């Protein structure tokens, strides 16, 4: 099913999404990948505030290439989500509602998704030029010294993703592969 949603979003809205849905996201999302996650995790361990609110927000696992003059961003496709698996359950328990990446997640992440009524989206890996066209604005939020790995606030318009793990724990990677496996 094709759906258009706004980010940030509520748990009620997240619950309407089903594994396999083709979704266009508009609104505000945040980028964070390996180094930013490590830094946020360490900040939490020290009892400090995070540079962005988790509740209702969507994190895009992405580190862009540099923007050419007059463009908001460079190539901007998803990175492999599993490297953030160590940190994701903590952020989900703090209210993070969605993650955009690519690739498999651990059972611990899936359980945290179900526990919190969240959702894991995949964007098409290796389609960074195309995906950059759905990003209308990009603004640095924190950890500038991390370069491409800094946290950015993105304004997106009809950003195309597919629901892989929904709030009930259905996993498209598992079901879709079975459908086309001819062993």
């Amino acid at each position, binding site marked *: 099913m094709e759906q258009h949603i706004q980010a940030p979003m509520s748990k009620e809205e997240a619950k309407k999404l089903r594994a396999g849905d*083709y979704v266009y996201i508009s609104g505000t999302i945040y980028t964070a990948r390996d*180094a930013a996650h490590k830094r946020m995790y360490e900040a939490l361990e020290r009892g400090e505030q995070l540079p962005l609110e988790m509740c209702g927000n969507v994190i895009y696992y*992405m*580190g*862009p*290439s*540099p*923007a*050419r003059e007059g*463009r908001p961003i*460079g*190539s*901007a*496709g998803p*990175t*492999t989500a*599993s490297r953030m698996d160590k940190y994701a359950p903590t952020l989900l328990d703090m209210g993070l509602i969605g993650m955009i990446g*690519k*690739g*498999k997640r651990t059972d611990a992440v899936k359980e945290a998704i179900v526990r919190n009524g969240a959702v894991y989206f*995949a964007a*098409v*890996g*290796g*389609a*960074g*030029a*195309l*995906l*950059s*066209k759905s990003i209308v604005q990009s603004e640095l939020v924190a950890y500038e010294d*991390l*370069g*491409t790995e800094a946290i950015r606030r993105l304004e997106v318009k009809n950003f*195309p993703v*597919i629901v*892989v793990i929904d709030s009930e724990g259905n996993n*498209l*990677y598992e*079901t*879709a*592969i*079975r*459908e*086309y*496996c*001819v*062993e």
Partner: protein
Amino acid sequence: MRTIDVADITQNIKQMCIEVNHFLSKDMDEAMKCAVQTEKAPLGRQILCQLQENLKIAGEDMIPICQDTGMAVIFLEIGQEVHFVGGSLEEAVNEGVRQGYTEGYLRKSVVKDPILRENTKDNTPAVIHYELVEGNQVKITVAPKGFGSENMSRVFMLKPADGIEGVKNAILTAVKDAGPNACPPMVVGVGVGGTFEKCALLAKKALTRAVDEHSDIPYVKELEEELLQKINKTGIGPGGLGGSTTALAVNINTYPTHIAGLPVAVNICCHVNRHAVRVL
């Protein structure tokens, strides 16, 4: 003896880094177009069409095909009659990478130390493989490697008794474990034989072979065809979201090995399998 100024190496590598990150080689481009026609799954076809659109935008607007513009892997086949002048060859290669990644708006993805992890901010150093060959030419292959797929690559130290079935199992295991993480449709580079490090290098080099070319060893060619069929029956499909196009090619390179061993390396590459060649 032929004299080559290393400044020529710098200039060529700079141009090649920019070129490969915006345009696929002809063999890869054709394989990707062909996949749209043959893919069975509707969502798989939709993803392959998006990737066509992505390639078009990348070339027209000069936005890198993928934001992971890779760690620059460079093969230099140097004729033994060549004499380099103008400075250090290694520094000239790295200068080409530095200029290409900086002036070409490519992502700087290299950290200076694997544990301390401070970004070098110019994507250097490159990983450079030198080979001395006959003649007076220099063949440069630039093959930037993204790490979504690099992370899913494997080395298996099999036993001779494992034989060809062991090799097949190793390749299928690596591909199935990689699944959606490696951004399928993938290209599978395989090295069989040699030593621990030699088979890994064979696998890397296999990725630079055109995807429409087969090994000239008959049994290896058959193995490449059989494995491609098997991989495309796993159901992984484009983006790992189900379908009949999981790999575009399986390229296998072999080398003599020890009586006690059967090393197998599987180097997986995503559909942005970048490789450009120039001969000076």
